[in-house]
């Protein structure tokens, strides 16, 4: 039995929700159920993730949705590595008969409440970073970006290309928090926050929630929308992933992240190749992770990602529309749950103004550095 994403749900994305995280989570999950046409009483699995206790656990949503019996529950202590991983776990539970309908969600007051960008992660490596002012996740991604740009012969125009391409999509996306048109001049005129990053290289923290419903392909066929089939999934931590989420002292190569390590398994399990991909949703807490991801997945040449984006390949109507919701950079930082939801919408042909055409194969990733996960979603074929 194969699994699919049958529906997606969102709360509004705002800078100050004025609501509890539980309220946001419940709304997004209820919207995903309504979108698919599945009753809450049919849910028997819930999976979610949180960073430093910034969300509500699976059992809480099972309670607010009055789920009668929970057979599968995951509360992952992970950040952006989690969404594809949890959808994949949910798919495996469905495929093996351990669950029938699984909600996967991310909910947080990420702007008005605890902000991941400036929170101090716990863990054994933290004592070496925070006292010296190496004290934000942005800095770690920037450290990788600087080396990546140097080693691949790329630069600020390549980072800028990602910010501009994705903002163009966000202009078409009513859910996006950043929709003001962005020009190269405006990008270059803005000061560095952490060199090589400017503000437009960084995700925008928001309050909100996003959920997807995972069920069997067989059931999905009888629901409201065409199934977005989970053709394969993969999680990978490369060698020496470190002592905590921000510890990268033992990672050898800052120019290659987990995408390089999971690529063969991901595409091989799905029976497709990078050349078959028609739309890509690449995790983008910062612009550099899109470039590293495109190269790591083999969607473009090593060192050629910036030129690839500048050529218009990732724009609407290009060879490989990428981050069609505007990404975490412009739609908002739901830690990649919204990236997975957008992937499902694009396969289902529901991308609205930002849908370039029918897409049969999508790759979506979760995570930026040492570890992360990915899915291949396909049309029902």
């Amino acid at each position, binding site marked *: 039995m194969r699994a699919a994403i049958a529906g997606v749900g969102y709360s509004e994305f705002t800078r100050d929700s004025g609501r509890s995280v539980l309220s946001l989570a419940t709304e997004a999950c209820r919207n995903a159920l309504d979108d698919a046409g599945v009753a809450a009483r049919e849910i028997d699995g819930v999976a979610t993730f949180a960073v430093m206790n910034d969300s509500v656990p699976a059992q809480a949503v099972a309670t607010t949705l009055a789920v009668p019996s929970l057979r599968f529950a995951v509360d992952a202590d992970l950040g952006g590595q989690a969404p594809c991983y949890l959808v994949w776990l949910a798919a495996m539970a469905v495929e093996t008969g351990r669950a029938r309908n699984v909600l996967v969600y991310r909910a947080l007051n990420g702007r008005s409440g605890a902000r991941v960008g400036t929170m101090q992660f716990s863990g054994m490596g933290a004592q070496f970073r925070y006292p*010296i002012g190496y004290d934000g996740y942005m800095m770690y991604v920037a450290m990788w970006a600087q080396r990546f740009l140097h080693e691949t012969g790329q630069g600020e125009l390549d980072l800028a290309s990602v910010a501009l391409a994705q903002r163009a999509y966000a202009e078409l996306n009513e859910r996006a928090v950043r929709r003001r048109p962005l020009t190269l001049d405006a990008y270059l005129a803005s000061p560095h926050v952490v060199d090589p990053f400017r503000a437009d290289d960084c995700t925008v923290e928001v309050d909100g929630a996003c959920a997807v419903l995972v069920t069997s392909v067989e059931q999905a066929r009888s629901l409201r929308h065409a199934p977005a089939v989970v053709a394969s999934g993969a999680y990978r931590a490369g060698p020496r992933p470190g002592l905590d989420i921000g510890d990268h002292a033992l990672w050898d190569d800052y120019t290659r992240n987990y995408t390089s390590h999971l690529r063969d398994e991901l595409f091989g399990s799905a029976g497709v190749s990078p050349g078959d991909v028609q739309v890509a949703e690449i995790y983008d807490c910062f612009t550099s992770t899109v470039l590293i991801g495109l190269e790591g997945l083999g969607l473009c040449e090593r060192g050629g990602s910036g030129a690839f984006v500048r050529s218009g390949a990732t724009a609407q109507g290009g060879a490989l529309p990428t981050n069609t919701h505007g990404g975490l950079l412009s739609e908002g930082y739901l830690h990649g749950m919204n990236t997975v939801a957008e992937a499902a919408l694009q396969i289902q042909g529901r991308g609205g103004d930002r849908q370039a055409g029918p897409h049969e194969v999508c790759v979506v990733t979760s995570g930026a550095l040492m570890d992360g996960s990915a899915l291949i979603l396909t049309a029902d074929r």
Partner: protein
Amino acid sequence: MNVADGRTRPQPDRESEAFWSGLAGHRLILQECQECGRRRFPRMPSCPYCGAEGGADVEATGAGTVYSWIRVERPLTPNMAAEVPYVVATVDLDGGGRLHARLHEGGDVTIGMAVEALYVDHREGWTELRFATAAPGGRR
């Protein structure tokens, strides 16, 4: 160098104690695997390259090479507001081992430049490892 900045001092644990007490004595202590010979940071109970248990504490020369760097222009936390702009570098130490530390700038920072360790004693009671451009022809 001796500074007071009100920042929280590191909290050494059973693994890291040797590193921090080494810095207090202006010595850079890493672990070296007694099986495969590779050096590592942070300190941990076994070798992340070969899995061998234990490891010997060894003193690095403090000479190294910049693998990557960032310049923090806007502070992310109030603690660092008085410090910006500042550079943090990823340094590959001669003899093995990689770590992150502030870099004292004397011009452009470039990947591949040679650096050497210096030690900043904070009045709050801890010593910070930093690096500076290596003097031509050897240690300053």
